C-alpha cells in the first residue's frame, strides 16, 4: 500500500521537523549559556524501497578541536600575566613617590646630616637627625614588611589556586567517567557533558599549563605541561599538592607518585599559578634582596663612620643603626641604634674629644657617605640603589601589565573565533525554525493529501 507509505513518509517528516524545531529551540535557549556549543540536526533520507522518509540521528556539537586546544594555551598565558600583575601590584604602592616613602625618608636623613654638619652643637639639629634616621628605618621596615606580605599573599594564592584546580580535576574526572558510560549507551547524547568538561578544562588552563589529548573515539585525557596525566582516559584523577618548601619558605607544587611526593613546579611555567611563582621568585624576590642589601650596606657604612667619631660626651665607638648580622632580613631589622636613640648628644659629629662641641669633622665624613658608592659592590650610592629598585620593580610590573593586555586580547580573539564556529546565532536559529515550520506544514499536507487520496479510493469502490 503505497498511500500508507506516503502517510508514513509524511509522519517521518513531521517527526524530523519537530526534532529540528527542538534543536533550534535548545540552541536559542542556550544562546547565553557559557561554554555552550551549538548543535546541528543530522538528517538522512531513508531509501524508498526501505519504506522511505527521513530519519534523524542524534544532534552533534559544532566545534573545532584545534581551536579548543589553542585556546587552552592562550588562557594559560593570560593567567600567567594575571598572576604576575596580582603579585607585583603591591610594588606600585610600596615604591610610590609619596611623603613617607623610602626616597623622601632618605632625602630627609641626608638633609638632617647636612644640618648637623652645619650646626654640630645645635640640639635641634641633633634631635632632627635622630628622628630622620628613625623615619628612614621605619620607611625601609614598612617597605620590607609590605614585600614580605606580598610574598605570603603570593604563596596563599598558589595554595588556593591548587585547591581549586583539584576540585575542578575531580569534576573533570567524574564527567569523564560519565561520558565514558554514556558513549557506550546507544542514543545517549554526551554533548552537554562534554560542554561542561570543556568549560572546566578552560578554567584549569587559566591556572596551569594543561593540554588535552582526545582521539576519534572520544578517549580523553588531561595532561600537565604535556608530560603527565592529571586526568586519565578512565577518568582517574591525579591531584596536585601545594606544600611549603622548608629551605625557601615558599610554596611549591608536588604530585604524589608511588607513595612519595615529586616536585612538579618546573612544569608549571604559565597559568596564574605559574605567573604568581615567576613574579614571586623574580621581581618580588629581587626587590626584597635589593632592599635588604641597601639597608645592610647603608647601615654598615654609616655605622663604621659613626663609630669612628665622638659624641658630645667624648665617647666613641657608637653605632648609628642597628641591623642584622648579614644582608638577609636587613631591611626589616633596621633600627635606630640603642647607642644613640633618645640621646642626641651621643651622635658622633666630632672626630676627637678635643674640640667639642662644634667639631663637625665626623659629621662631614658622614655627610660624604651620601655620595659614596657604598652598596651593590661599590656600584651604587644609597640614592641610586633605591632609584634602581624603583626602576626595576616598576618595569617588571609594567611588563606584566602590558603582557596582560596582550594575552587578554589573544584570549578574546580565540573566544571570538570559537564563538564564530560554536556559538549560537539567533538569526540562524530563527531561519531554521522558519524552515522546520514550513517543513512541518508541508508534511502535514502530505498526510492530508494521502488521506484524501485514500478517501477517494474508498469512495470509488462503493
Amino acid at each position, binding site marked *: 500500500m503505497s498511500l500508507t507509505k506516503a502517510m508514513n513518509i509524511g509522519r517521518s517528516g513531521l517527526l524530523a521537523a519537530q526534532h529540528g524545531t527542538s534543536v533550534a529551540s535548545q540552541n536559542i535557549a542556550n544562546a547565553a549559556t557559557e561554554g555552550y556549543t551549538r548543535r546541528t540536526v543530522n538528517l538522512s533520507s531513508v531509501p524508498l524501497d526501505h519504506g522511505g522518509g527521513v530519519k534523524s540521528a542524534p544532534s552533534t556539537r559544532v566545534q573545532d578541536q584545534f581551536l579548543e586546544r589553542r585556546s587552552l594555551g592562550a588562557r594559560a598565558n593570560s593567567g600567567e600575566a594575571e598572576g604576575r600583575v596580582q603579585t607585583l601590584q603591591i610594588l606600585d604602592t610600596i615604591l610610590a613617590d609619596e611623603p613617607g616613602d623610602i626616597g*623622601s625618608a632618605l632625602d630627609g636623613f641626608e638633609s638632617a646630616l*647636612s644640618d648637623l654638619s652645619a650646626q654640630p652643637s645645635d640640639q635641634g639639629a641633633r634631635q632632627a637627625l635622630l628622628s630622620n634616621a628613625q623615619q628612614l628605618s621605619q620607611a625601609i621596615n614598612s617597605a620590607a614588611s609590605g614585600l614580605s606580605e606580598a610574598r605570603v599573599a603570593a604563596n596563599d594564592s598558589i595554595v588556593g589556586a591548587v585547591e581549586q584546580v583539584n576540585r575542578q580535576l575531580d569534576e573533570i574526572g567524574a564527567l569523564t567517567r560519565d561520558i565514558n558510560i554514556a558513549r557506550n549507551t546507544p542514543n545517549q547524547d554526551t554533548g552537554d557533558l562534554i560542554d561542561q568538561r570543556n568549560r572546566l578544562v578552560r578554567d584549569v588552563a587559566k591556572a596551569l599549563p594543561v593540554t588535552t589529548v582526545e582521539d576519534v573515539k572520544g578517549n580523553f585525557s588531561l595532561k600537565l605541561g604535556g608530560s603527565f596525566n592529571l586526568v586519565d582516559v578512565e577518568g582517574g584523577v591525579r591531584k596536585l599538592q601545594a606544600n611549603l618548601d622548608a629551605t625557601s619558605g615558599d610554596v611549591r607544587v608536588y604530585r604524589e607518585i608511588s607513595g612519595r611526593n615529586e616536585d612538579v613546579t618546573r612544569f608549571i611555567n604559565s597559568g596564574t599559578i605559574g605567573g604568581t611563582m615567576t613574579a614571586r621568585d623574580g621581581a618580588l624576590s629581587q626587590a626584597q634582596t635589593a632592599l635588604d642589601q641597601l639597608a645592610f650596606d647603608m647601615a654598615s657604612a654609616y655605622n663604621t663612620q659613626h663609630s669612628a667619631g665622638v659624641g658630645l660626651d667624648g665617647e666613641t665607638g657608637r653605632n648609628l643603626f642597628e641591623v642584622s648580622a648579614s644582608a638577609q632580613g636587613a631591611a626589616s631589622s633596621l633600627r635606630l641604634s640603642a647607642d644613640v636613640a633618645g640621646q642626641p648628644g651621643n651622635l658622633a659629629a666630632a672626630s676627637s674629644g678635643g674640640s667639642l662641641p662644634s667639631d663637625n669633622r665626623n659629621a662631614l665624613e658622614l655627610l660624604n657617605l651620601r655620595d659614596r658608592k657604598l652598596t651593590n659592590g661599590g656600584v651604587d650610592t644609597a640614592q641610586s640603589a633605591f632609584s634602581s629598585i624603583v626602576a626595576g620593580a616598576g618595569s617588571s610590573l609594567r611588563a606584566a601589565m602590558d603582557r596582560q593586555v596582550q594575552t587578554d586580547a589573544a584570549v578574546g580573539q580565540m573566544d571570538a573565533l570559537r564563538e*564564530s564556529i560554536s556559538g549560537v546565532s539567533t538569526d540562524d536559529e530563527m531561519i531554521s525554525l522558519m524552515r522546520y515550520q514550513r517543513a512541518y506544514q508541508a508534511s502535514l499536507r502530505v498526510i492530508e493529501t494521502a488521506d484524501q487520496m485514500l478517501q477517494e479510493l474508498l469512495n470509488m469502490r462503493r
Partner: protein
Amino acid sequence: VRVTDSTMYAQMRAGLATRREHLERAQSAAISGRRVQKPSDDPAAMAKARSHSAQESRSIANERTVNVTLTALQVADSALDQIGESLARARELALQASSGTISAEDRSYLANEVEALRSQVLGLANTQEGGRYVFAGMKDGDSPFGADGVYNGDTEAQQVEISKGLRIPLGVTGDRILGAAGGQDVFAALSDLTSALRGNDVDAVRASLDQLDQGSRQVRSARVDIGGGIDATEVARSVAERGRDQAVAARSALLDADPLDAFTELSRAQGALEAAVAVAAQLPPPGLASTARL
C-alpha cells in the same frame, strides 16, 4: 566570520570596559596633574624623578647651611668691625699720649679709656650667635677669651659644606685675630698701653703704637677672610637656588601632565565612551527574532 549574539555582546562589554578605563586614567591625570603617579606608569621617568627629588632636597639643605653660615659670618664680621674701631681709637689715644705736651694726669685719664676699650674688645671677642661663641673655633661652647685675655678656644675653625664638595671655614679663630698666634696679642698690647700710660712711660706708649698697628692688621686680614667666606656663601646660595629650581622643573617635566594634553586626552576619552555607550544603547540590533512571522 560568522558573528553570533555572544560575540556582539562580548565586544560591547570589552569596548565599554576599555573606554571606561581610559576615561578613569585621563580623569585621574587631569585632577592630580600628574602623568606618572606610580612606578609602573613610567618606570624610567619615576627613577629619574627620584634623583631630581634628591637633588631638590640637597639644594634646600644647602640653602639652610648657607643661611646659617651667612648669619655666623656676618655677626663675626660686624664684631670685627667694632673691634677694629676700638683698636683705632686706642691707637689715637696712644698717639695723643705720646706727644710731650700731655701731663701725667691726662695720661692716667687716657689709661682709663684704654682700659674701657680693652674690656669692650674682650666683650666683642666673646661675641655669641645662636649660643655659639663665634671666635672660639670648634670649642664654641665656652667663652674663648678669659678676663686676662688668654685664649682658651680651639685653634681650628669649624668647616661648613656650603655646596657639593665646597667647604669653607666658619669664621676665623680668635687666637689668630687677637692672640699671639696672629703675631700680636692684642689684649697684652692694650694692657701694656694702659700700664705705660699709668706709669707715664712715653717710650713704652710709643712702642705700643706698632703693637696696635699689628693688631689692626690682624683684624683686617680676618675680615678679608670672612668677607671671602661671605662671597663664596652668596655664590653657593644662588647655586643652591638654581639647583633647586632646576630639580623641580626637571622632576615636573618627567612626572607632571601637561594641562593642555591632559584636558585634550580627557575630552577624547569622554567622547569615545559616549560613542560606545550610544552604540551599546542600540543593542540588540534588529534580528529575525523580533521581526519574523512564524
